[in-house]
């Protein structure tokens, strides 16, 4: 039976990070791993189209990529390569990691190493762990493909030259390393949930990959409540995915059909938030998760609770973006005029959500002309096609 291209595409996407991670461990070289994984995927597509899927596609890819890597190393004749060859003839040791033994987790800690620039961390994770193409990553960051390629090349050179380790950090380094890894996982999720690439408003496979990575981080550090908070946040956000769009238009939270939300994700998310509350060590992700738990609890959001949680978030992690979201809750509790005062005080002119929030508040206050101008600014800055559609509909309504 031949395999459909969708099946092949799905498997290749799902297995890419695992293949790269296994090869990085085995050959200690990101370039060799990346190139061999890429070649194996090309061979897989050709072979599977003709012969159908093998019984264990992931294992097939790892073996094929491993052979390709050995071929490449043999072709090269430097001493360095011969040493690598000697090293790889000994079977790869499995370096136990306790509860979680996952090469992708090692790979993510390598990609999220604080010795790399933040944008390089996210780009490397998207490239090596998630398997996005250079063009997709460049589009996501709104930079030229050559610029992104240079950035990634530089990061990979630093990994090699400075010997950024492929592994889970020492216990003493873990807390600081963990926050970097969590931030990158959250960015990967948001890259899927608010896709800015192409015409697709949402990339479910990125959301799923981020959730998988969040689960791994939590397994690694179950006593660190922020890992539970991050997982809960992603589950509760992802649960609303099926109701977020009406055709190509974004549907705001309050207007979503709650029966379409993914119930098991909500239950799991609520459960995790309850566990976090018991520990009484609140942090950024836990509070965001709690806000999303309130939104997904009962028939409508309890805005007083949401506002109280945003007040707490402003203490733990104050930022203009948090203040903007707090203002949205404030509008529901004290009305749009109070919220508009708060929003106008924020310095977020380049941010589309600032204009969109102002526009909505102005619309609710009946200032249609100012609202229209704000909607126009928001549309010009919005990257997500579904959000642009939503804003365009609202703009039409205030223009009457």
């Amino acid at each position, binding site marked *: 039976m031949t395999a459909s291209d969708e099946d092949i595409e799905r498997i290749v996407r799902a297995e890419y990070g695992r293949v790269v991670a296994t090869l990085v461990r085995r050959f200690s070289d990101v370039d060799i791993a990346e190139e061999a994984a890429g070649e194996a995927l090309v061979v897989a597509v050709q072979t599977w189209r003709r012969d159908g899927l093998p019984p264990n596609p992931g294992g097939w890819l790892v073996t094929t990529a491993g052979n390709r890597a050995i071929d490449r190393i043999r072709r090269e004749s430097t001493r360095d390569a011969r040493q690598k060859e000697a090293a790889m003839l000994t079977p790869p040791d499995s370096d136990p990691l306790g509860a979680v033994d996952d090469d992708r987790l090692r790979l993510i800690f390598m990609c999220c190493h604080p*010795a790399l620039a933040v944008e390089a961390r996210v780009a490397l994770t998207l490239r090596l762990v998630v398997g996005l193409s250079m063009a997709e990553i460049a589009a996501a960051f709104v930079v030229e493909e050559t610029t992104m390629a240079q950035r990634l090349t530089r990061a990979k050179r630093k990994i090699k030259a*400075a*010997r*950024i*380790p492929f592994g889970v950090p020492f216990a003493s*380094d873990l807390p600081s390393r963990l926050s970097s890894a969590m931030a990158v996982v959250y960015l990967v999720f948001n890259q899927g949930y608010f896709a800015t690439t192409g015409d697709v408003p949402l990339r479910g496979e990125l959301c799923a990959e981020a959730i998988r990575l969040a689960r791994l981080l939590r397994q690694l550090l179950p006593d660190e409540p922020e890992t539970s908070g991050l997982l809960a946040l992603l589950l509760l956000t992802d649960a609303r995915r099926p109701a977020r769009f009406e055709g190509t238009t974004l549907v705001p939270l309050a207007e979503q059909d709650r029966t379409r939300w993914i119930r098991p994700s909500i239950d799991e998310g609520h459960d995790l938030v309850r566990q976090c509350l018991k520990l009484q060590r609140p942090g950024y992700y836990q509070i965001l998760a709690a806000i999303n738990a309130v939104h997904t609890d009962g028939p409508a959001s309890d805005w007083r609770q949401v506002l109280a949680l945003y007040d707490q978030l402003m203490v733990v992690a104050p930022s203009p973006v948090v203040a903007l979201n707090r203002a949205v809750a404030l509008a529901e509790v004290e009305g749009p005029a109070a919220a508009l005062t708060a929003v106008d005080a924020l310095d977020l002119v380049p941010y589309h959500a600032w204009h969109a929030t102002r526009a909505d508040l102005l619309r609710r206050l009946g200032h249609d002309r100012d609202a229209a101008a704000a909607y126009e600014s928001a549309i010009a800055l919005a990257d997500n096609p579904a959000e642009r559609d939503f804003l365009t509909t609202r703009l039409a309504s205030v223009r009457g």
Partner: protein
Amino acid sequence: MAQQYMLSVWHVGGYPELPPDEMQAQFEAVGAFNQEVMDAGAWVFAGGLMPRDTATTVDNTGAETILADGPFAETKEHIGGFWVITAENLDEALRWAAKGSKACAGKVEVRPFQSE
């Protein structure tokens, strides 16, 4: 296969001027750090540098050798000393750098040496 790293200590502006007792405490802290690096077998070489106004820049890339008084880079930041250590990987080097930075009360740059 260990990798060598240079941990260089950077000062901004002049050398920090400390009262004698603080200076003494810092010497002792650096001495203790040096001993720890040696005990761990990570020590290769280390040294403190004289102030930058003792530097001379030599340029023999042209027709004749030109000497100039002072350091090459006209920046506020300047290198005050360094350690050369061996470490398995960057994480290990960064842990030494963190201890070294604390001991000498300065920022430390970590850079790998070219391997052969």
